């Protein structure tokens, strides 16, 4: 990566124009995303769920890696902003015939696309595309390797804010496979910026990154210690597909130690909320009684996901539009626009 991502994703006056990572974004900007998403939640509750904001814009879902929930919530978000959306399952299309990534992108640009939503198995993929795409195409990172999943992190922040009133001052525990989790990384940056009192990670030593405390987290190896006094418990999925070595003795051993049961839930505050980015492995990270229980907000997260993605898409497109206008003004005679 050559450009600092927090610079690459902002316009000269600090507005969002790509959304690649939560790292390095200001508290004001993260709060603006949450506030805008809040407004979109109210439009989702109407009979007519669409707003005309991105009418005439073209959004391309570029998924180099499988995902059902993220892809479909981005698709719904784009549709509810009145944009046109094209879903490309790259794994099965041209790249399989030998076309390079850049050729694929140039072809999509030639179709006058305004935004790419990118999911890729390699860390830094969305950043690479944002650096090389022609100006005025917005890039939204829908998950890159182990690096970041910023829209998931922001929908989690919105969930905490709506169900616990605020993020500031809250104790948040992230449990499980932190090592392979881009979600955890993006959450940690957002939680820190938004003023969480404590960020804890709980899991076996083999699944906690060695430098985790440098990110401002406290590591715990036992649920009983880590969940004490928590306001928010975020369970992560065991990413078996990303595990190359035997990092775990077995799933049942993991469940015994770190699976969230009703009994372990009592270590946290009585009004603690339980979150999970999905898809959940019942009986591996979480027991069904907890996943479906009164403290679970797992399905609320899915609904907020649409609102957050609408907010980020609208804001990034807005930043791109401003840059486009400034560029046009530089080329135009002054006063030509307003006749």
């Amino acid at each position, binding site marked *: 990566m050559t450009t600092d991502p927090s610079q690459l994703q902002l316009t000269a006056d600090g507005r969002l124009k790509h959304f690649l990572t939560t790292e390095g974004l200001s508290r004001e900007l993260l709060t603006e995303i949450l506030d*805008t998403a809040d407004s979109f939640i109210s*439009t989702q509750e109407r009979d*007519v769920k669409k707003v*005309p*904001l991105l009418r005439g814009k073209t959004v391309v879902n570029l998924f180099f890696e499988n995902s059902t929930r993220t892809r479909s919530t981005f698709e719904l978000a784009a549709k509810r902003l009145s944009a046109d959306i094209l879903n490309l399952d790259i794994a099965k299309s041209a790249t399989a015939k030998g076309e390079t990534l850049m050729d694929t992108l140039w072809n999509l640009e030639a179709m006058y696309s305004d935004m790419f939503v990118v999911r890729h198995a390699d860390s830094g993929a969305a950043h690479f595309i944002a650096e090389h795409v022609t100006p005025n195409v917005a890039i939204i990172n829908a998950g890159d390797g182990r690096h970041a999943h910023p829209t998931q992190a922001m929908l989690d922040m919105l969930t905490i804010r709506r169900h616990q009133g605020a993020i500031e001052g809250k104790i948040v525990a992230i449990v499980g496979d932190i090592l392979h989790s881009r979600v955890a990384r993006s959450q940690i940056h957002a939680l820190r910026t938004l003023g969480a009192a404590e960020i804890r990670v709980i899991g076996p030593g083999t699944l906690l990154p060695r430098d985790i405390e440098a990110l401002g987290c406290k590591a715990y190896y036992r649920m009983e210690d880590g969940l004490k006094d928590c306001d928010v418990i975020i369970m992560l999925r065991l990413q078996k597909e990303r595990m190359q070595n035997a990092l775990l003795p077995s799933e049942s051993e993991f469940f015994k130690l770190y699976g969230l049961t009703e009994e372990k839930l009592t270590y946290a505050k009585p009004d603690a909320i339980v979150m999970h980015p999905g898809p959940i492995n019942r009986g591996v990270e979480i027991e069904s009684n907890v996943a479906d229980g009164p403290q679970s907000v797992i399905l609320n997260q899915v609904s907020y996901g649409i609102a957050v993605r609408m907010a980020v898409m609208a804001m990034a497109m807005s*930043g791109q*539009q401003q840059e486009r206008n400034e560029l046009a003004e530089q080329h135009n005679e002054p006063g030509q626009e307003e006749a």
Partner: protein
Amino acid sequence: MHLPDIEHTCTELGQRLAAYLEQNNIEQPLLVGIRTGGVWIAERLQQQLQTEDGVSSLDISFYRDDFTRHGLHPQVKGSELPDSIEDRHIILIDDVVMSGRTIRAAMNELFDYGRPASISLVCLLDIGRRELPIQPDLCGVRLELEEGQLVKLSGPVPLELSLS
């Protein structure tokens, strides 16, 4: 330029609105203010008229026609309307009417909430310069401003007008 006294203008506007409602047989109007200034005026009129439903507010940020020019407004607050506006008589209230574009956006948004029986437009000030065929049903004061001059309402307490 002499600016009108707000208290006096609002009181008089409230009296005219009461008469307008009676004349048009509107018994349960729904007052809808456009954020931000329109909500303040709507609240002021609501106090005077004591309508049943209180004041609803409309944030037109997602409906503006200048997204391609100016992008998204950075402080979107969201709209707060009752569960249904179906068959309601809506009194749409704004502080200043100029081009008419805000009102067009507001009407587009209202129709995404349902099909009202009617919409009437009430504004505190009309400063002309219309760009769309939209006219208020009731207006506090018509102002002739100089070219390039704008009027701004600040509030909610006290409500004050200033020129810029």
